[in-house]
């Protein structure tokens, strides 16, 4: 456990080092520039939250909450105010203890999301990690739509040394999932990871297809532990909330993977999603390497959210 943690922080720190070129103003500079808590201070704070993609509504809520607490606790010092804010968001982003139970059970993990968020890559990384934990992993290539998707996944499963269940491009994804579930049962796989095609959440028929896939797993493998992860691109803004909401309609989402957090984007929309839908973030993607899919650490995430620019503008 301690070794894993070190790896996590090491990786995250390396990923975050890149954010230093970011042009956004960070909290640190705000806190040092203000000696008292006033409107101007709150405005700056608000701006930082919005610039992190937390969104206007969630930001307003957070700010109202903060102001109330500052009053209640008679806080005068901006530095204390900062800690209060960080603590409250960390609290909110708390990952439940049973978040990774699927790793220990016979489970089916369905991975969904819009186009280009990094579903296939995330599955490849997850497969590799689970395999090296000694799990028997099976992967289903249910993205039968995008050109090259199956080959891409095959490459990842090759690297990870796990089995892939696939049909040809253009075949029925539900059929692939059916095959994969059957194989998972007969081969006694611990974990079945299902890749799906990227679909925009406002496309009715594609969302129905997902519902169908979901039903097949329910029906064919009722005693499997179910985990449904939505992958969100960390650079996405407010639309990620709409995505999460719409995907919730067709599948019971149990967790979020936020990818591409090694850039300058902060992925703050996850805070808004957690607030509104109470879905915990379980993983973050911070790079292209197989180890770059990390278990979510609220404290590190929130601090990174507020970690500002070291370079003067």
């Amino acid at each position, binding site marked *: 456990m301690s070794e894993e943690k070190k790896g996590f922080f090491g990786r995250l720190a390396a990923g975050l080092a890149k954010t230093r070129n970011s042009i956004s103003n960070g909290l640190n500079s705000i806190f040092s520039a203000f000696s008292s808590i006033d409107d101007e201070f709150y405005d700056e704070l608000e701006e930082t939250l*919005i610039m992190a993609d937390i969104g206007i509504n969630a930001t307003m809520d957070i700010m109202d909450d903060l102001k109330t607490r500052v009053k209640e606790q008679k806080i005068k010092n901006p530095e204390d105010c900062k800690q209060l804010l960080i603590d409250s968001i960390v609290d909110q982003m708390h990952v439940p203890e049973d978040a990774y139970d699927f790793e220990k059970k016979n489970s089916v993990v369905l991975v969904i999301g*819009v186009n280009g968020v990094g579903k296939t890559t995330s599955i490849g990384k997850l497969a590799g990690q689970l395999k090296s934990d000694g799990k028997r992993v099976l992967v289903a290539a249910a993205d039968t739509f995008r050109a*090259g998707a199956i*080959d891409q996944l095959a490459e990842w499963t090759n690297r990870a040394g796990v089995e892939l269940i696939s049909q040809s491009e253009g075949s029925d994804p539900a059929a692939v999932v059916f095959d994969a579930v059957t194989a998972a049962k007969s081969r006694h796989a611990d974990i079945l990871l299902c890749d799906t095609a990227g679909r925009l959440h406002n496309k009715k028929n594609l969302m129905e297809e997902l519902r169908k896939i979901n039903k097949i797993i329910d029906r064919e493998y009722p005693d499997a532990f179910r985990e449904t992860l939505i992958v969100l691109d960390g650079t996405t*803004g*407010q*639309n990620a909330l709409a995505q999460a909401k719409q995907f919730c309609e067709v599948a019971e989402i149990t967790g979020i993977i936020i990818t591409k957090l090694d850039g300058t984007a902060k992925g703050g929309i996850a805070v808004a999603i957690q607030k509104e839908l109470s879905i915990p973030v379980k993983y973050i993607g911070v790079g292209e390497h197989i180890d770059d899919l990390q278990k979510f650490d609220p404290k590190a995430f929130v601090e990174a959210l507020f970690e500002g620019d070291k370079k003067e503008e």
Partner: protein
Amino acid sequence: MAFDSLSEKLQNVFRNLRNKGRLTEDDVKAAMREVKMALLEADVNFKVVKTFISSVQERAVGQDVLKSLTPGQMVIKIVNEELTRLMGDETTEIALKPGNEITTIMMCGLQGAGKTTMAAKLAGKFKSKGRKPLLVACDIYRPAAIEQLRINAGKVGVDFFQMGTDHAPVDIVKAAIEHAKSNNENVVIIDTAGRLHIDEEMMEELITVKENVGIDHTILTVDSMTGQDAVNVAETFNAKLEITGVILTKLDGDTRGGAALSIKFVTGKPIFYIGTGEKMDDVEQFYPDRMASRILGMGDILTLIDKAEANYNEEQARELEKKIRKAEFDFNDYLEQIKNMRNMGGLGKIMEMLPGMGIGGMNLKNVDLAAGEDGMRQMETIINSMTKEERANPDILNPSRKNRIAKGAGVDIADVNRMVKQFGETRKMMKQMSGMFGGKGKKGKFKMPFNMKF
């Protein structure tokens, strides 16, 4: 949906602005607060929003409100004009060299933006214009990226060039251009790997290509759902690679696409095309005005305001008002109204333009618009079959005249009867309405006979 509540909010603010001849500072400030929220919710970068709001505020305060608009509409009009101006005043295309000279186009962007798909779509687009494109696979990192491009090249029916994953992109591009020359191909489209703008090493790879091979267009592909970070991405790509322009992808989603404004703001480069679907021909021209109203989340209400202005001048309105008061409203006026509706794009377009109807008229499915439009077309035909005398004096229509009109219009006499009855009711209603409006001589109050609420 967020959109609807937003335009409702704006409308609430604007409701309070009614009946004033000139926009005061307080009016504008109240409206701007909502506009600011709208833009932030659309993911326009915070700093861009601030700059934009202050410039619009400056322009709006003290402006006379056009007679044909309410103060609220006037503010939206100004906001929209400024937004459109910022987005670029006109549509721009990627300029290709004349004749058989080779144009080189290099795609670049973050991972998952949609470069590979868009590269193939562009190739298809140029091919349909009679060009001979070549697709070049330079994404040597992502597993199966080359395969993806090869398959898509096949789908659009253009030539494809690759050298596997063991050569540097600059060498692949050089060889590809030779290949194009010997095969008489004149548009070379280079797909590159997705990369982070802050990844120096990967950015260097593209700089090397640019420096060693003449690249005519470097196109930044951006996911339209990008949030606040769009400015960082666009600014860095532009600074390092001097991009020619931008392509926005995944606009068939329901994102408001504020990133478009942020990118335009920080780079000043044109947005060429938008990706609007999964099929290979789902690539469209970029229209700054449409994007502006999408970002604002007001449907195309602004277009409607403009069109209402253009198609219905005040003089006409006053003339009509006079006629209605005297109950002189005849078939000629009726025809005029139908034509006005038509000029505004027909019933469907008008409905789509109204806020609350959702982007692309998503909520319109339950409304039988086609029937409405058919009805309008039929009315027009029937009126066109009347004599001048009949049009000016609706009361002279008797069964024999109606019979002739029905034959001329190719419709049943029942249709003519229904139309005449409908007209009678409209006239009655208008007379009553003119009673409501009349007397006090308020100018410009009676605006549109087909009463549209904003």
